[in-house]
């Protein structure tokens, strides 16, 4: 990574910014945030007034796009998007300035702006339909009374109101009325289920009194529009109006669809182009200014520097000064960009999940990727489960993987893990547990080790793998310390363990009687152990004891390779045993057995796949990274035009 300073005449700024934006190889830093030494000699840039114009146009377009999107019918479902997404057809665009974009916005808004009016009409129409439906429901409730609707409401002397009341609360309501002395009140009541519809009639002067009483008792008044005629006539009128409104709704939706067909693509294109323009304009305040010149500060990958210089020269006709500096001694300031071959890139997400490497730190992805897959395969260890994962990965790769980089990366990781699990499953003889020998009487071929039958051998392999990975971590840490000339840390942090481990191995073999060693070896081992322990205690003091137990814990933690392998095979076998026990001659039992088998194996497949992945991650993050890796680097975030649906003509800058 190189720190970049670019100085140019302000006349060339827009052209250069546009080219840098499309190239996406420079991270622009804010000179004023970075407290650059240049600040003292430069002026701050003013916020471009064009930004407001840009934002206003974006807002106009966004409101129309949202309306069109809300009523679009061909939105694909989740499964369709996952399995068979439509690749995005990019729209070719030319370089344009803001004025030209604004002109285009004006044209398209004049044609598509009607969409927001249509939306308002649709909202009003929906509200009217909902109101009518509510009316229809209310009228349906009072229909059994066979009353003319003209009686409801106030007349010259009376006030009549329909309401709904719970049967259980009716008596309390009636008593309340008696107490309130409504001597002129008339109640008609028809009970339906748990509720009753009542029609209350009183003298006009008592209206407020009655309304207050109903409110206090939480009784729902049925709102019915004034209408002179029978309930049935009103219902018929409502039906006719709803039908007419529905017809109008279809017409309005057609209108929106027509606008969408004519202007939808243009709107999206302009939205993206304006967004890019706005982002470009926003950077002006990041620069340092003089009367005629502009200074841009940023970061670029070393391999992109030559291209960056070409772009600067081309955009400014050579009227530019250009300076590259190596990062100073503060790695926190320097952004980090992964630099891995294509096949390794999907696994960068695993490293990022823990933390991005700091500048100058070893990127562990190349070590993590193969080991993660190996551990996953060992722990899942079932050829059929591996086949399932591979099939899922292929479906994802050929589906959403075509349009989404993330899905493509996940599918590649899954595919690798699936194939590795198939191989591991064959070597462990796992085919949905012991399905082959139990149900088909076939002894699995090519079996090298079976965790259930040879747990001790499997454990031995797990612990060997563990000690190898732990030492790989120590070697990487040693390499980093040597590179940065931190020899004391190297001595205490890694050399100590290189002394201690062989000595401990000799003592262990000797203690458990697995081997005998000549006195010289024992003496050398004793000295090595003393030196190793001494260095550890020198580094951590009495707490060094926990370093020793921690190391032991890290090593024994690899026993989970056996535990998970056992769990996969054992649970699958349990499902098979249960299936066998349940199955019988009766077809019903056979059906039950098939159900147990399918549900059990699916459960085991999902749970163990999840477990194998998480435990593989844990071994990387805790046991392996703990030896050499801190992470915490800042992501390189280039100034790059985000073109999702457009592509610039002649865009290979």
């Amino acid at each position, binding site marked *: 990574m190189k720190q970049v300073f670019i100085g140019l005449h302000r006349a060339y700024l827009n052209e250069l910014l546009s080219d840098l934006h499309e190239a996406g190889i420079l991270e622009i830093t804010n000179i004023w945030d970075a407290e650059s030494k240049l600040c003292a000699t430069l002026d701050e840039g003013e916020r471009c007034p064009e930004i407001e114009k840009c934002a206003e146009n974006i807002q106009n377009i966004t409101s129309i796009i949202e309306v069109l999107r809300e009523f679009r019918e061909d939105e694909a479902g989740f499964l369709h998007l996952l399995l068979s997404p439509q690749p995005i057809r990019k729209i070719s665009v030319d370089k344009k300035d803001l004025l030209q974009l604004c002109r285009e916005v004006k044209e398209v808004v004049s044609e598509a702006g009607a969409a927001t009016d249509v939306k308002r009409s649709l909202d009003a129409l929906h509200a009217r339909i909902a109101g009518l439906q509510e009316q229809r429901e209310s009228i349906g409730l009072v229909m059994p009374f066979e009353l003319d609707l003209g009686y409801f409401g106030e007349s010259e002397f009376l006030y009549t109101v329909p309401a709904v009341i719970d049967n259980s609360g009716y008596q309390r309501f009636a008593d309340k009325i008696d107490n309130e002395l409504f001597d002129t009140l008339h109640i008609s009541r028809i009970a339906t289920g748990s509720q009753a519809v009542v029609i209350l009639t009183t003298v006009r002067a008592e209206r407020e009194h009655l309304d207050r009483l109903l409110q206090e008792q939480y009784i729902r008044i049925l709102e019915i529009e004034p209408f002179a005629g029978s309930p049935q006539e009103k219902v018929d009128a409502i039906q006719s109006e709803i039908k007419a409104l529905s017809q109008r709704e279809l017409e309005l939706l057609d209108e929106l669809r027509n606008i969408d067909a004519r202007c939808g693509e243009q709107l999206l294109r302009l939205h993206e182009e304006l967004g890019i323009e706005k982002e470009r304009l926003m950077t002006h305040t990041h620069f340092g200014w003089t009367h005629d010149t502009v200074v841009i500060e940023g970061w670029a990958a070393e391999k992109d520097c030559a291209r960056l210089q070409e772009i600067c020269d081309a955009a400014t006709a050579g009227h530019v000064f250009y300076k590259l500096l190596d990062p100073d001694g503060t790695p926190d300031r320097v952004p980090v960009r992964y630099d891995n071959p294509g096949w390794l890139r999907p696994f960068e997400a695993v490293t990022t*999940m*823990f*933390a991005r490497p700091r500048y100058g730190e070893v990127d562990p992805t190349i070590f993590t990727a193969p080991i993660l897959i190996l551990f996953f395969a060992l722990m899942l260890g079932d050829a059929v489960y591996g086949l399932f994962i591979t099939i899922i990965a292929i479906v994802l790769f050929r589906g959403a993987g075509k349009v989404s980089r993330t899905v493509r990366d996940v599918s590649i990781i899954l595919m690798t893990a699936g194939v590795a699990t198939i191989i591991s499953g064959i070597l462990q003889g796992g085919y949905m547990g012991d399905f082959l020998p139990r149900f088909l009487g076939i002894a699995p071929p090519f079996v090298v080790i079976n965790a*259930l*039958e040879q*747990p*001790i051998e499997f*454990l031995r392999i797990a612990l060997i793998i563990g000690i190898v990975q732990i030492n790989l971590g120590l070697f990487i840490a040693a390499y980093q310390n040597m590179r940065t000339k931190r020899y004391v840390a190297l001595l205490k942090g890694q050399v100590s363990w290189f002394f201690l481990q062989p000595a401990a191995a000799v003592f262990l073999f000797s203690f*458990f009687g697995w081997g005998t060693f000549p006195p010289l070896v024992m003496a050398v081992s004793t000295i090595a152990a003393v030196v190793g322990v001494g260095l550890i205690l020198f580094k951590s003091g009495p707490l060094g004891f*926990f370093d020793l*137990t*921690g190391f*032991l*814990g890290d090593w*024994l*933690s690899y*026993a*989970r390779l*056996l*535990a998970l392998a*056992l*769990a996969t095979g*054992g*649970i699958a*076998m*349990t499902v098979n*045993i249960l299936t*066998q026990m349940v199955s019988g001659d009766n077809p019903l039992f056979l059906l039950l057995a098939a159900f147990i088998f399918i549900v059990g194996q699916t459960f085991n497949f999902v*749970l163990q796949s*999840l*477990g194998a992945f*998480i*435990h593989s*991650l*844990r071994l990387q*993050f*805790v046991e392996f*990274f*703990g030896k050499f*890796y*801190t*992470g*915490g680097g800042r992501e390189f975030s280039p100034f790059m035009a985000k073109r999702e649906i457009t592509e610039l003509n002649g865009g290979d800058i």
Partner: protein
Amino acid sequence: MAMGTGTVLVVIGAGLAVGLSAIGAGIGVGIAGAAASGVTAVDKDKFGLALVFQALPQTQGIYGLLVAILLLMSTGILGGNPVDVPVSVGLAAIGVGIAVGLAGLSAIGQGIAASSSVAVAARDPEIVGKGLVFSVLPETQAIYGLLVAILLMAFSGMFTGVFTISEAVGFAAIGSGLAVGFAGLSGIGQGITAGAGIVATAQQPEVMGRALIFAVMSETFAIFGLLIAILIMFGSGLTG
């Protein structure tokens, strides 16, 4: 065929394995499930994610079930011909059940960690992977318990059907199971630290490494238990 004392002891071992671990898994799943319900109440689309976190502490129950099945198979009660199991092996089976059963109580800690994880993961989808890693930390104790259980079964001849250990060694196996089993309760402490660790990591992603170190400190005691369990196996002559 009447059941011998050895077989009865193996059956008790199987009961301890599945029963004790089910207590841990049940409580752990319950703790995680309470948080999962809250998360789903706020955002029903998070149901699948919440279910994954709730399922994590189930593993201890599965280990217990696995060992119980293996024990029953070794006697022929399940899926084979009944075998005359000596009392010494029956005693070892009790040790097996205690090892995996007590260590299965670490699921309580896993439930605590998972409940914190599901809460933060629901707010920030990018934290899901880290949440899973923190949640899986307290499972180490259960793995040690399973490991000792498998070693005890292997060394006492339960996989091969060749039973040679003495009754004294069978009692030693119980000691071995107790060591790793009780030490496995450190998983509860680890779960508390891991739960706080994921919250800290959600606020400051760069502290993940340090939060992991804090969380794995509790594992030290599980390692002590495992170490003693293995030493008992070798010291008592269980390994032959």
